[in-house]
């Protein structure tokens, strides 16, 4: 199996499964394409006919209203036909295998699967086993990757910081269980930022996190010193049950982003969060709603970035324009 399963022989995007293996020019092209779509949402007519006649199926094996909605909106604005399937409550619970579900949908002549699954590697698996004309977009697989989220974050960073060179970025919180963080780290490094710091207790950092090209830190005050971008991650409540952390309040005390801690960063630093946020757990409301927060812009940018990725993947396979 090729390590570049997501690229065509010409180096164009076929699937979008992970940031790994994608170079700066391609990531930049995604951002540029997204920019051309970004202005559209302010227009009276919000649609372009790029994917007219194409059928896109959102396959969500794990619930996520927010991500699914932005994918639906993105596909609709590209004029594709969209079908959203909440598999968590249908076929597989009747004992149908993942592959049978995929093959059944293939038989309905779809052009793209947008997949979210609770297990790392699920999107790769589907891409390897689906019909060759179908593109697969990873909307989050286990703890592995969430590349469209990472790209909308890169888009938001570029909006505010213009370029990646020289930027210091801090990612704070549960890195270990975060597919978003893994994809962000790959994207930030590929786009050439100066430094990526990950700030968390050791219980919430992958064992070999340094090999991912980041600086691990366990002290938030030192970690935020002089950074341009702060990315806060969502803390799942169940982490308290398996001895990762003593309590939410202790986590907030050490790693929650407050106005006082934010002062350590550069004055023009932006605050990001992939959502949904836990107010008072990883971030104080005053920061989440404050002037440096770009959290809602991330949400708006999600549609444009996903439009870019979907249209590039479907044109990469020689389908649409």
């Amino acid at each position: 199996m090729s390590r570049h399963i997501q690229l065509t022989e010409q180096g164009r995007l076929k699937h979008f499964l992970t940031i790994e293996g994608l170079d700066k020019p391609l990531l930049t092209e995604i951002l540029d394409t997204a920019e051309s779509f970004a202005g559209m949402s302010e227009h009276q007519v919000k649609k372009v006919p790029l994917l007219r006649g194409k059928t896109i199926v959102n396959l969500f094996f794990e619930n996520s209203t927010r991500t699914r909605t932005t994918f639906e909106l993105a596909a609709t604005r590209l004029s594709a036909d969209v079908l959203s399937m909440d598999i968590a409550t249908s076929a597989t619970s009747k004992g149908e295998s993942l592959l049978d579900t995929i093959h059944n949908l293939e038989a309905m002549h779809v052009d793209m699967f947008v997949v979210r699954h609770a297990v790392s590697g699920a999107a790769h698996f589907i891409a390897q086993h689906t019909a060759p004309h179908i593109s697969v977009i990873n909307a989050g697989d286990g703890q592995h990757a969430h590349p469209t989220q990472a790209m909308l974050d890169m888009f938001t960073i570029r909006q505010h910081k213009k370029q990646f060179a020289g930027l210091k970025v801090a990612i704070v919180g549960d890195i270990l269980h975060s597919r978003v963080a893994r994809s962000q780290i790959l994207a930030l490094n590929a786009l050439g930022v100066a430094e990526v710091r990950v700030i968390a207790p050791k219980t919430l950092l992958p064992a070999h996190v340094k090999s991912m090209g980041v600086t691990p830190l366990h002290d938030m005050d030192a970690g935020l010193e002089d950074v341009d971008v702060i990315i806060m991650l969502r803390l799942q409540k169940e982490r308290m049950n398996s001895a990762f952390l003593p309590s939410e309040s202790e986590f907030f005390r050490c790693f929650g982003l407050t106005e006082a801690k934010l002062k350590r960063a550069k004055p023009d630093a932006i605050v990001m969060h992939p959502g949904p946020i836990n107010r008072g757990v990883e971030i104080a409301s005053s920061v989440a709603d404050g002037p440096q927060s770009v959290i809602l812009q991330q949400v708006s940018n999600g549609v444009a970035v996903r439009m870019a990725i979907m249209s590039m993947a479907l044109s990469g396979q020689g389908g649409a324009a």
Partner: protein
Amino acid sequence: MSKILIKNGRIIDPVNQLDEIGCLLIADGKIMAVDSQPGDFAADTTIDAAGQIVCPGFVDLSVRLREPGHTQKGTILSETRAALSAGVTSLCLPPDTQPVIDTPTVVEFIKDRAERADYPQIYSIGALTQRLAGNELSAMFALKQAGCIAVSNASAPLGNLLILRRAMEYASSHGLLLMFRANEAALSGKGCAHEGAVASRYGLPGIPEAAESIALAQCLELAELTGCRVHISQISCKQSVIKLQQAKKYGLNVTADVAIHQLHLTENDITPFDSNYHVMPPLRSAIDRQYLREGLCNGTIDAICSDHQPHDLDAKLGAFPETAPGIASLETLLPLCLELTRQHRISLSQAIASLTSKPAQILGLAAGSLTPGHKADVCIFDPQATWQVTQDSWHSSGSNTPYWQQTLTGRVTHTVQAGKLVYRLTDAS
């Protein structure tokens, strides 16, 4: 019983410190002589082994046949064919069949299926605890009487250390070898890959080396306490090698084996999410592999096994963490061992010893040698022959191997089991 003459081959028999071109004479199921000339030996079958190596048949310490219970993955028939084609003439069957090998009935069932002259010798390993559930001791004496060569809890966890202590005391009371897969389940959790750079990058739940080395250290302490003869199965990491080396130096009567793939593959070889690399214990780091190789060279690790685990396609068809671990590895055992000798990591004689006399000694078997008078289990292989791993060259029901489609060097051409020629390579390659 037929008489077989194997001539012109390079005979390597580590136990008898033999490495010379000569003739091997087999009669009445036994090795008759190793000689430079056949003399007046009237053979029914003559094998010209020029350019080939003649050695004892391999003794494999861990082969899943998948029968009884998992015949969609393999059967005694299919997997023993694979074993013979791989030069394996004796093999140990771990107790995690379905039903579990925890009663004499299951041992008898396997014997009934397997007691044919052209099958490799199958040694059942009895369950250490009932149903392998880890809490109540199995009827080890009855299992031994039925023919079990050792007891083990396979990869199933034991309830607590007291159970392990009692099991050791009881097993050693009956002179039974205890085979132990070192794994602290609380530390390995739901892990499916080595807790290293690759698992960190791919978001795969990791298994730290300590999950193995802590369990190993506890086991060695209890072996010391109870005097039980313990064999550690399929070690995978640096710390395990170090702890074993210390224990052996200290004089503890302990042995260990390593699965052949651990001597070759590391976490870095895992093609993203390719389930054929999903194996337990997981493929570790290059440093761990280095320690395993050195441990094999300096005798800390006694034997190499295949740890053969054939699977049906469905078991490997899924996202990596959801697939079944294991590699169908019988038929790649010899070529991969030869690869180690070509890399000068181990001598040919040492490699053959770790596949023959060493595992036989661990089990207390009079096998693994070409000593005259012993049962004639012989493997003849061409060390230069190249072959491609494909459906046409493969015998196991399981095609779950990372080496699928690859070209390997070294191939078994003949296997003699109890004096009978039971396998002969037929295809032109």
